[in-house]
C-alpha cells in the first residue's frame, strides 16, 4: 500500500502527522507543497484539490483513502495501526 503525504513546511498539523507516521514506523513519501516552485507547484496543488476538494493540509493518501488534517482515528483505521 502506498502512503503519500501532501504537506506544508509551515503547518502544525503536518508536523504532527509526520511525527505520528515516523513514530509508528510507517513508510511514506512526502511533498512539502509550499517548497515547490512554478509549474510543479501548480500541478501538485491541483492534485491536492482533486484529492481533498480543498486546500487544507495535510492531505494523507493511504491507498484509496484520503485523510485531511491530523486525524489519528482515521490514520489508525486505514494504516492498520
Amino acid at each position, binding site marked *: 500500500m502506498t502512503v503519500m503525504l501532501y504537506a*506544508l513546511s*509551515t503547518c*502544525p*498539523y503536518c508536523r504532527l502527522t509526520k511525527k505520528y507516521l515516523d513514530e509508528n514506523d510507517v513508510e511514506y513519501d512526502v511533498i512539502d507543497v509550499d517548497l515547490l516552485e512554478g509549474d510543479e507547484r501548480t500541478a501538485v*496543488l491541483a492534485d491536492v484539490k482533486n484529492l481533498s476538494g480543498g486546500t*487544507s493540509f495535510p492531505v494523507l493518501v493511504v491507498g484509496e483513502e484520503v485523510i485531511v*488534517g*491530523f486525524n489519528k482515528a482515521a490514520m489508525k483505521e486505514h494504516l492498520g495501526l
Partner: protein
Amino acid sequence: MSAAQGRPVRRRFSADTTIDDLKAYMEPFAGSLGYKFNTEEWFVDEVLASEIGILDATGDVYCPCRMRTGNPKEDVAIVCPCIPFHNVQFAAMRKCWCGLFILNDVEDGADLLGVIEEPEKGAEVEVPVCRVEDMPAGSVRHVKVGKRDIALARVGDEFYALSNVCLHAFGPLSGGVLDGHTVVCPWHGWRYDVRTGTTDHPGADVKTYPVVVRDGLVLVVTTV
C-alpha cells in the same frame, strides 16, 4: 515579489514580534466574533510560532495550514484571524481550520484538534456575528454571513437580520436609520419591516434570517 519593483516589502508587525504580541492582538478581535484561543496552549504556541515564521518570510501572518496562491486578492482570505471570511464553515466545525480558535462555548479544544472535515452542505448553523454590547438599541449594521450581506438591526432588546440589499436600486439597508421596527433605506427612503422583510412596494420584500442571542453573542441562523 514587490521588492522586484524596487519598493521595500511591506511588513506588518515589527521585526521582534513575539507569540504574546500576536495573542494580545488577536484575542479581542476573535472574542468579538465569538471565538477564543484553543484550550490546548501548546498547540496555540505551535501555530503562532509558525505564523511568525511566515510573517518573517512574507510580511504578514498568513494561515500556516493553508496554501497561499501568491495572488494578494485571494490571499487576504487567509490572513490570521481569518474568521470573518469563513464564518459559516467555522461555526459549523466549531473551530477555524487550524484549530487555533474554537467557539467560546467549546470546553475542550483537544476534541476538535486535528480533524478537518468540511461541514455538510445544507446543514443549519448558528453563526456568531457580534457581541450584544457592540450594538446599541436602535442601531443597524452590516454583517457578512458566508457570502450573504445582511443588515442586523436592534430594536430594544430584540435583534433582527434581513438581506442588506434594498430591492429598489440595491441600496445598503444597513446604512439606513431605524424608525421603530422599520428600517429606512438611505438611498431613496423605501421602508422595510425588519421583522418580516416586507415593504409597501409590490414584489420587493427581502429575505429575513432567524437570530439567536446567547451568552452575550448575536448569532444569525443560516445554512452551510
